[in-house]
């Protein structure tokens, strides 16, 4: 058997048919034995029925025309607010002005730098700099030895000189005679 507290908790579920079979059974059991809860249940049912039968209220006859007037008035008010704000320029947000000014400054700056006449003339560096950049005699001259700095003719001569037979050292006497003969054969062949 459920308590009166549980009964009250089940009340709307029972009325709206939203209770499980078991709970409905418990509810009805309590309803049959508790006069206080019975009274409460019946008064809720009566109130609910009364509320469902409340007389319908309707809008007044000129409701639609009033609504149309209201809509028109609202629309006109919006238009007037728009007109009172004046020319469209006023409605441009303030950050747009800042952005436009910055853009203009960048464009002007670019043109000024780009089309400025070149007034600078080549000048000798100051004496102090000249002294600092005096040629260093210890730096070797790579012009002759570095192949990257050679002219094509120089490069060819050096290559041919390097590949000449004379550059190949004579075999020393302590090398194996067979190996010496092989070298000779190769020399003769090439």
């Amino acid at each position, binding site marked *: 058997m459920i308590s009166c507290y549980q009964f009250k908790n089940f*009340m709307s579920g029972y009325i*709206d048919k*939203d209770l499980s079979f078991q709970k409905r059974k418990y509810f009805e059991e309590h309803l049959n034995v508790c006069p206080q809860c019975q009274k*409460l249940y019946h008064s809720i049912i009566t*109130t609910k029925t009364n509320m469902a039968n*409340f007389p319908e*209220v309707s*809008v007044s006859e000129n*409701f639609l025309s009033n*609504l149309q007037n209201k809509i028109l008035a609202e629309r006109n008010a919006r238009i007037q607010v728009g007109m009172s704000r004046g020319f469209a320029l006023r409605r441009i947000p303030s950050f747009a002005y800042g952005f436009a000014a910055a853009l203009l400054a960048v464009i002007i700056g670019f043109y000024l730098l780009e089309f400025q006449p070149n007034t600078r003339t080549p000048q000798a560096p100051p004496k102090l700099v000249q002294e600092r950049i005096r040629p260093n005699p210890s730096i070797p001259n790579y012009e002759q030895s570095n192949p990257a700095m050679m002219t094509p003719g120089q490069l060819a001569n050096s290559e041919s000189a390097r590949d000449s037979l004379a550059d190949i050292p004579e075999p020393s006497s302590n090398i194996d005679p067979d190996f010496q003969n092989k070298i000779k054969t190769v020399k003769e062949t090439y």
Partner: protein
Amino acid sequence: MKDSYKISDEELIRRFQAGDEAAFEEIVHRYSNRLMNFAYRFVFDMEEAEDIVQDTFLKVYQNRFAYKEIAKFSTWIYTITANLSKTILRKRRNRKMFSFSRLGPNDKDMDFPSKERAALSHIEENFNERTIQKAMLKLPEHFRTTIILRDIQELSYEEISNIINAPLGTVKSRINRARLRLQKELQELRGE
């Protein structure tokens, strides 16, 4: 509250969004009395209730594109009316002024002018309605909203859940508590 119209509310608002003003008129025709009943039971004042309903339609007109078809149109429009009704009540509370047309707990407009049976029956009904209405006005707003939507407007738990933006379990328990509280208020009014 079952709709038996050929064109659904959602189709009507879609047409209105596309620029069909006649669709808006049809919406007004369908909902004006329903919303009027809801608003009237909420604020218990005909003039204020009508203003609420007009403002509801004005909002629908202005914010027609705010409606997305993820919820039922009825839910959307009831939500607007409920919010406007609450605003009116809040303003009323702030003003702390009561017009004569509104009833207070000590009003003396319940005298029976006639003793004829038919008239008595009508007056009894009227008495019941006014007493319940007075008891409802004593309920907190959230109880009042749910009990009006459930017991007067006869909306489903799901619809109420969408309108008041609360979970289904909360709606069920709130309806139960609202009904019990209403009985308590009625007992006090009847002097039981």
